[in-house]
């Protein structure tokens, strides 16, 4: 399978009152088609920012300084996302690449119904398809057919804009019905029982797990090829977490999409992912297939992470030292102050990522 996304030397910096935060310093990643790539690391290591950078919605005062993000769009063309203008990126967001976040309650707008919010995504990206469906239904050649035809051909025309604002006639009930059908379908796909009722509800009326399903529904409504999931189960309790992970696994197969799964939980990585990237303080330390990583971790940080997973009966091990301040990160390898295998060269030169075995990449001076 080819590469769906290729991140090359991505550099992201935040210009704040207290200084320049070097959040991402030369990230190199590949996400293959139809694979689940996990990104694991401590809080603040830049995993979320990587996801946001792919979509191009990093918050100010962040600025992407350099690098390329190559993405294979639905039509087969490969584009550099960082070189595209906003208009094209807006077409890609929600349609080719979608993102879901940690707090589902906060991710949904409290004053609009579930249906309204999913419909928004649908109407934004799949409008043509829906209009064509509607047109296929109208037999008579009348005003209705003309209006819908016009909507399909020239959506920005003044007549359409005026017409839709008129109270009763501009209702577009056929389109709305079609959209609602699709919304209910998607909700059903999310394994939500009674999707008709849920569609009419407001976010605060739903439980955490349900809310997250709605968020996933919104994300997958337009069949994206890449789903970026930023710790979607962290704020949910264990049983719900298992259900959501199951759901993601199943949906990935159904929709044939890739998933970039961001988390700090090694257990979830083991459950869900094909390959995994380990990040520390804005750098990729290691990328490997999950089984290989757990069996033979190469990077000292990965080793320390795996050791620190609490096991019953054993003493609790943690990594000594603290996560560095990214305004003044340590020179050279950013992990060297805490690394038990540190050599003098680690404090001077940043290790480059290289392939040490089949499909296992490490950035460490030990290799």
């Amino acid at each position, binding site marked *: 399978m080819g590469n769906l996304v290729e991140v090359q030397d991505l550099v992201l910096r935040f210009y704040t009152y207290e200084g320049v935060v070097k959040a991402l310093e030369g990230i190199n990643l590949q996400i293959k088609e139809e694979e689940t790539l996990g990104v694991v690391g401590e809080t603040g290591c830049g995993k979320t920012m990587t996801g946001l950078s792919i979509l191009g*919605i990093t918050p100010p005062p962040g600025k992407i300084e350099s690098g390329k993000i190559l993405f294979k769009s639905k039509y087969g063309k490969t584009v550099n996302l960082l070189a595209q203008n906003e208009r094209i*990126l807006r*077409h890609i967001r*929600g349609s080719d690449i*979608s993102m879901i976040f940690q707090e589902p309650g906060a991710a949904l*707008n409290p*004053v*609009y119904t579930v249906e309204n919010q999913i419909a928004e995504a649908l109407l934004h990206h799949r409008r043509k398809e829906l209009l064509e469906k509607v047109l296929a239904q109208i037999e008579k050649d009348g005003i209705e057919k003309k209006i819908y035809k016009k909507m399909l051909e020239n959506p920005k025309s003044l007549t359409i804009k005026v017409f839709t604002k008129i109270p009763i006639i501009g209702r577009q009930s056929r389109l709305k019905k079609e959209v609602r059908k699709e919304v209910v379908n998607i909700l059903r796909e999310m394994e939500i029982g009674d999707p008709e009722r849920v569609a009419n509800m407001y976010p605060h009326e739903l439980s955490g797990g349900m809310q997250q399903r709605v968020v996933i529904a919104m994300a997958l409504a337009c069949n994206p090829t890449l789903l970026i999931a930023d710790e979607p189960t962290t704020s949910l309790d264990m049983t719900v977490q298992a259900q959501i992970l199951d759901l993601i696994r199943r949906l990935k197969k159904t929709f044939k999409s890739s998933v970039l799964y961001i988390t700090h939980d090694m257990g979830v990585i083991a459950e869900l992912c094909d390959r995994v990237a380990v990040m520390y303080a804005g750098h990729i330390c290691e990328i490997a297939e999950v089984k290989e990583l757990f069996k033979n971790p190469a990077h000292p940080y990965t080793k320390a992470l795996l050791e620190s997973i609490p096991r019953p009966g054993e003493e609790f091990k943690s990594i000594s030292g603290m996560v560095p301040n990214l305004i003044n990160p340590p020179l050279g390898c950013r992990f060297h102050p805490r690394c038990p295998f540190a050599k003098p060269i680690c404090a001077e030169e940043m290790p480059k990522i290289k392939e040490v075995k089949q499909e296992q990449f490490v950035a460490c001076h030990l290799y």
Partner: protein
Amino acid sequence: MGLGTYIIRRLLLLIPILIGVSIIIFAITEFFDPYARASLYVDPTKVRDWPAVFQKYGLLDPVYVRYFRWITEVLHGNLGYSQENRMFVLKALMSKFPASAEIAIFSTPLTILLGIYLGVKSAVHRDKVVDHITRVVAIIGWSLPTFWSAIILLSVFYGGFGLFPPGRLGSAAEDFISRGTRAGTYTVYTGLNTFDGLLNGQLWITWDALIHLFLPCVNLTIVQIALLIRVMRSSMLEELNKGYITTARAKGLAQNEVINKHARRNALIPTLTLSGLLIAGMMTGVVITETVFHIDGVGSAAARAAIRVDIPFVLGFAMFTGIVFVLANLIVDILYAYVDPRIRLG
């Protein structure tokens, strides 16, 4: 709790608050002597037999007895007799109310719509030129004494350019109306010249009224818009930081839609509750605006009454504004519950 229960609860709360307002107003009368207090019930110039009046209205009775008597009178519509206006307070208030209402009706939409628009623009372009200018203009408006801005407007536009004269109507329109009402050709439906003009088919009167309304409304708007802009701006800023905005962006929505459809709708909710305060501001602002622009509404009448120490009218006015304000807050609260689904569906 559903919307219905909420409304009922708020309506029930209305009663103690109204009682409270009446108590406060009554407490003020405690500062007076019995003769002055008599004017709350009768016309003092017509009183021949003071002891009988004292007896009848129990003006020498203990406080709580007097309160109950007073509140009963009030509920029957007797707010006292106004020396200044030479008629009973309630009648004076009702006759002067349309003038004030007209100003309020035209100022409120102007203030609210302009305030919301500027608040949103200010928040979205935070710390840029638009933001700074808007905030400075708003602060200037908030710092202007209402009477001073009224005087400036009048001096510049009327004194300087001869436009927008003070008063409610020009003399031609006044004559027409007074002759017309006497002859039966002109009916006063609402007392609001703008609407009456329309309903009587005399559009030039409506136009005349609007010209005269322009400066007073601008004056009220200038002073009140600052608060609205500030609140709208800060609630927009708060909303723009929330998670659903990032989600909306991740869905691929344009900035325009994100702001107007998502953020603004949520930010409007706290602004709605502010409108209650705005109405209070309208009540106070109207006193001064009416005085300077020579409009005979309840506000300027109250100002005149205050100078002449015409206690019943001043107190009647205070009661009146209090009630209006409490009712306005009730409506705002109900609207708020309706608009925010989190409250509506509990």
